[in-house]
């Protein structure tokens, strides 16, 4: 055959058994790697990388060491002990948990919620949890690979990955890689056990390639397999709306790329003063999404009040569309209406069902009275529960983010000044646009250093991250802005009023709203969208029973200390900074937009599998053989006349074999040429070869003649017969 194989080779021959066992081991490694990647992501976000990597190394080393000496049952027991022990340690580490019957019930309920999409990142102690579950399956899978039990190892890995698929933490790419790893382990193990050879490897390659092509064709995997991506649920419609990305999944807010605004009216609200209608708050940032940790439990009676001075604001909501959130000015104190209320660990509320058009809900809130607040004097005496939850920054956030925050807030002496400085910095330095490409990697780093423009989620995420870098507890909040005034004290709120902003914690006061998004350009964009929708006659843009149009209204977001400003960071940021700044390397799409980007290694690996599968299909279909023959026929050997003659004859004989029949074993060349009625050129080549055989040598002239005749013969016939 034509292929030269450069696999592990022993004595010039491919060591197929070793190759197959190696393939099975690598497949299991990919599978295990796919769930370890999820856990690594968790500890990267919440902290614990320093413990995670040594832990994995230790567990794998232990498994390799014990693999040779320890019985399977002992190893299985050891793996189970690791898992159960780890989870017990986790339960002990969770402060609120006590180990009683109620805890066990809670454990059961938690398992169910994890399996129905409750992200591991939503666990309050996700880092501890990740470290707790890592050793068990990893030890067992590695041990089984060392023992050569690849299928069992794959089963352990698949169960573990399956868990993270169900929690929604495994990315599409990670799940694909893990699934391919599991399938590869099945295939290679089956073949290694049976001592198969190349044909078997081909069959596995074809199968894996088919799986990849099928998933791509079914649209299960995004065409551009970007880095993390995440598996956050899409928002139903084909186009991403800001509102969808902020309210579709109450537990996770994914930062999107370009978005549109929906002009449809969601609800109207009567209130004594315009407020931001908050829908949810998020504490944990992954670098590309916001996650709300902890639980959501039904509540009755009164809810929350700010610690500081507050005013009572009654809001009468009338819903005009189906809405999945329960908007409320912060802090909601009481809800009246035909809907159950759930409270989150972040002290925000959720409805227990979707709210329907024409439904009425009254919410009484106590809103912090900023005019009498002395936020500048609030100090930094944060409660531990606040510090624990609201100071988290992804572990892989580049240092330059913190450095920038330091410089921007250099003159700020209090947390309040810090917040104002960052808010003003973002309002001044970045311009508002809905049409931005989502950067790869950490979006805050991307927004601060490589983008000029962004919208509310970029502003708010950046402000929270910078505040946390400065040690100020802050969180990412979503909901709706005040909307537009319909007249009197009534406001109309549309999909395009959905918004993300920031809340900063001040001791003795509570959560205080900041909005780093420039208000004017945002309102302009919203106004334009409403006008477009009205002029195109779209349905649901206005409240039907009203004769007059709504008007814009302001809500104060930044207060009191307007004279305070941010410090000049001293370095240029934004995309133009790339030229002279020695910043961390980034795969951002803007910096390298002109150059064709090399796909990342994972994508290349997937393509390599597809390529190998395609090659195998071609070889089986005979295409490679035919291609090689076509070349072989046309390039005759040079040099030694004997070789030239043999080369010429082998080509003539091959073609005769294809067009007439093959020579029988007991047939002489001249008999054969006679029987198949070969033409004169073929006969002459045969004759020269016979003569050479008998004489033991041949003259260069005759050799050249044979060569030319063969070339003519090939040129005439090869076209359709190779």
């Amino acid at each position, binding site marked *: 055959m034509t292929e030269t194989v450069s696999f592990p080779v022993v004595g010039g021959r491919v060591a197929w058994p070793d190759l197959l066992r190696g393939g099975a081991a690598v497949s299991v490694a990919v599978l295990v790697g796919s769930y370890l990647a999820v856990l690594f992501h968790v500890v990267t976000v919440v902290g614990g990388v320093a413990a995670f990597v040594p832990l994995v190394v230790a567990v794998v080393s232990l498994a390799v060491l014990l693999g040779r000496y320890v019985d399977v049952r002992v190893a299985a027991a050891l793996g189970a002990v690791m898992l159960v022990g780890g989870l017990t340690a986790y339960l002990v580490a969770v402060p609120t948990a006590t180990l009683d019957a109620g805890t066990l019930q809670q454990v059961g309920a938690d*398992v169910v919620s994890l399996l129905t*999409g409750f992200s591991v990142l939503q666990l309050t102690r996700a880092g501890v949890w990740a470290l707790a579950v890592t050793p068990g399956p990893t030890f067992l899978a590695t041990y089984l690979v060392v023992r050569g039990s690849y299928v069992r190892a794959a089963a352990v890995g698949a169960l573990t990955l399956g868990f993270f698929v169900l929690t929604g933490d495994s990315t599409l790419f990670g799940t694909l890689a893990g699934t391919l790893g599991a399938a590869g382990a099945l295939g290679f193990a089956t073949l290694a056990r049976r001592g198969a050879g190349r044909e078997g490897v081909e069959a596995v390659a074809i199968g894996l390639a088919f799986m990849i092509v099928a998933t791509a064709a079914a649209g299960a995997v995004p065409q551009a397999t970007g880095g993390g991506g995440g598996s956050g649920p899409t928002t139903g419609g084909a186009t991403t709306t800001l509102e969808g990305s902020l309210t579709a999944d109450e537990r996770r807010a994914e930062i999107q790329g370009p978005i549109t605004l929906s002009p449809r009216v969601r609800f109207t609200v009567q209130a004594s003063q315009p407020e931001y209608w908050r829908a949810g708050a998020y504490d944990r940032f992954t670098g590309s999404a916001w996650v709300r940790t902890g639980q959501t439990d039904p509540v009755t009676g009164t809810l929350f009040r700010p610690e500081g001075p507050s005013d009572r604001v009654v809001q009468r909501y009338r819903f005009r569309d189906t809405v999945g959130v329960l908007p409320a000015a912060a802090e909601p104190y009481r809800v009246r209406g035909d809907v159950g209320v759930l409270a989150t660990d972040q002290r925000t509320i959720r409805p227990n069902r979707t709210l329907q058009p024409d439904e009425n809900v009254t919410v009484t809130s106590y809103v912090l009275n900023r005019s009498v607040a002395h936020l500048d004097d609030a100090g930094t005496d944060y409660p531990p529960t606040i510090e624990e939850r609201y100071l988290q920054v992804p572990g892989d956030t580049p240092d330059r983010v913190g450095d920038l925050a330091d410089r921007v807030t250099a003159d700020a002496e209090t947390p309040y000044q810090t917040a104002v400085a960052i808010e003003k910095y973002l309002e001044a330095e970045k311009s508002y646009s809905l049409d931005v490409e989502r950067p790869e990697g950490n979006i805050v780093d991307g927004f601060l250093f490589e983008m000029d423009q962004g919208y509310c989620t970029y502003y708010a995420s950046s402000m929270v991250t910078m505040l946390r870098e400065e040690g100020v507890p802050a969180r990412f909040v979503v909901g709706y802005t005040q909307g537009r005034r319909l007249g009197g004290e009534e406001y109309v709120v549309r999909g395009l009023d959905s918004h993300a902003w920031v809340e900063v914690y001040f001791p003795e006061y509570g959560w205080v709203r900041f909005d780093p998004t420039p208000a004017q350009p945002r309102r302009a964009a919203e106004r334009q969208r409403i006008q477009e929708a009205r002029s195109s006659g779209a349905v649901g843009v206005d409240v039907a029973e009203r004769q007059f149009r709504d008007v814009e209204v302001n809500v104060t977001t930044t207060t009191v200390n307007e004279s305070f400003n941010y410090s000049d960071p001293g370095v240029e940021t934004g995309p133009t900074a790339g030229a002279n700044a020695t910043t961390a390397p980034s795969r951002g799409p803007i910096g390298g937009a002109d150059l064709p980007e090399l796909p990342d290694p994972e994508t290349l690996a997937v393509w390599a599998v597809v390529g190998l599968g395609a090659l195998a299909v071609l070889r089986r279909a005979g295409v490679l053989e035919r291609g090689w023959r076509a070349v072989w026929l046309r390039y005759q050997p040079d040099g030694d006349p004997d070789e030239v003659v043999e080369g010429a004859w082998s080509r003539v004989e091959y073609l005769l074999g294809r067009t007439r029949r093959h020579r029988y074993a007991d047939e002489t060349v001249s008999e054969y040429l006679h029987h198949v009625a070969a033409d004169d050129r073929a006969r002459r080549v045969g004759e020269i070869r016979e003569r050479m055989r008998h004489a033991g040598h041949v003259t260069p002239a005759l050799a050249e003649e044979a060569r030319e005749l063969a070339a003519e013969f090939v040129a005439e016939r090869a076209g359709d017969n190779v």
Partner: protein
Amino acid sequence: MSAPTTDAVVAAPASVLGTARDALGAVSDAVGHLPRPTRRGVAVLVVVLAATGMALTAGRRSLDVVVVAGLALLLAGLAGVLRVEAPTVTRTAVEFGTVGESVPVELGVRAPNDPVVTVRDALPAGVTGAAAFEAVADGRPLTYDAHLRTRGRHELGPAVVTVHDAFGCWARRFPAGPTATVLAVPRTRALHGRSGLLSGYTSVAEERSEFERLREYRRGDALRDVNWKASAKHPSDLVVTEYGSAASGAAVLVGVDAPDADHADAAAEAAASVAVHLFEAGLAVGVVTPDGRVVPARGEGHRRELLAALARFEAAPLPAPETEDADVVVRATGDAVEVLADGSAVRFEALLATDGADSPDDAGGPTRGVSA
């Protein structure tokens, strides 16, 4: 908060797997030799279905990758086993063996693209062996020892070849290939050299020192009759000494009377021992069984015929005329095997060599035959 300890996707009870597999199996049996999922294939299908269910009830997550990739795995495997050509099976087997011993059997299974196969050779009652192989159909020799437990003709095969996809999710059975027959001949046991019942016959053979004449070697002559000294003078031929009438005329017919199927094997073993004992003493030996007769003769080839006849016969009383003809009758009665000769009877056990050593196995030696 807490964490899960199990994963619900794959943890389907084994009984569900079993039921699903049985149902699919029943369908595939009804339609013919269609591919059926293996346990592994059913497990993949269960994962796909569970993932579909979870995706529909609790959100997509990345479950669609599992669903699509899992289905692709099953479909690729199914297409593979549907396309595969029926494997060709070759078989090499020894035709002749002795009860209690093993004969080597070699199978070769071949199909284009060397698919993964499980080969199971059908073994009849009375033959045991590790006749199942996990292999690929590249024609490699698959060998096992067929242990012959009972006397008679045994048909080995046909081998059932089950073709799998490379991932082991599907199985498609091909009842394929030739069979081979192995004749399991009775064991022979060493008897007393000279004494007892048979000495009358063996002593006749001892007297063969009467030299008669030399003649050319013919097939079937015992090597011990070759006259090596004389052969040396005739470069192209072996020369055999033919003895006088006393020895050459000494022919013994051994009869087997086995009315009872339960004791037929014991009778066969005793008769074979007696016949071989006499044969090795140089007598022309024949056997008469309820099924037929092998006329007395000498020569290595004849030994095999004697044993073959004793291997094949079915339990039945030996008819009176045959009993009359037989010089020695081996009779299996209720609880003993008797050897009757010259009007007296003795239990077979009494004839056995006292040192307990069985006669060397010279039941003809293994002969290989190929059937395709």
